């Protein structure tokens, strides 16, 4: 089963839409609620990262009997220092984004804690691709 969602940078009104759709689908498929919770946290954070930092992006969700693979490709500034970005509390979010309670430097750590595997490919000035895998069992 494959789903694709487009995400616009800067548009917080739709942030979380893909996460909500995927949550509903996984529920219908009867996936373990504890696993759904992890998928939701990881996908929401990745989705918000595109809205907060990139110009636009595409989320590809591939659901197989054994698990879900989420590939988030964005056109954006890229991440100059991935190691720093993975540190809890480190953030490059704008003051406006922070005022809304986003950009607290917890996004990537939350993704990492909830994913079975996370890989980040990034190029400064071009964009970032996140691949998140979560197994159902």
């Amino acid at each position, binding site marked *: 089963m494959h789903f694709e969602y487009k995400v616009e940078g800067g548009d*917080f*009104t739709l*942030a*979380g839409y893909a*996460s*909500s759709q995927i*949550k509903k689908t996984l529920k219908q498929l009867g996936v373990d609620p504890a696993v759904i*919770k992890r998928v*939701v*946290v990881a996908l*929401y*954070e990745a989705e*918000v990262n595109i809205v907060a930092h990139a110009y636009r992006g595409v989320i590809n969700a591939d659901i197989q009997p054994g698990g879900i693979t989420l590939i988030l490709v964005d056109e954006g500034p890229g991440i100059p220092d991935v190691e720093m970005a993975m540190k809890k509390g480190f953030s490059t979010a704008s003051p406006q984004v922070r005022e*809304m*309670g*986003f950009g*607290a430097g*917890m*996004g990537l*750590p*939350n993704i990492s*804690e909830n994913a079975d595997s996370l890989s980040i490919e990034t190029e400064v000035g071009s964009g970032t691709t996140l691949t998140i895998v979560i197994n159902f069992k």
Partner: protein
Amino acid sequence: MKLREIKESLNLKVYLGEELLDREVTGGYASDLLSDVMGHASEGELWITLQTHKNVVGVASLKDLSAIILVKGFTPEKDTLELAENESIPVLGTDMQTFEFCGILYNLLK
């Protein structure tokens, strides 16, 4: 404890979800950082915050939280209530500030 009992004990305003007050509240989580709630709140908890925008409802729904409590007399934005209605997330409010509200709620739920 039922949300209705908490609403009555703490004299909360109901901005949305009068018909949802019979849901069970398992605890509370106080934070104004969305990722903190996303990462650490648990299903059934009340979320105590001063954030009034619609993303709060998005997070509450994704996390299956029981309700949102806005502190310090903050009122929800119009599109926050629209989304809350669609997602069946009650939005309540208090004039108390977070520390005071949480202190009382903690003792009530203990």
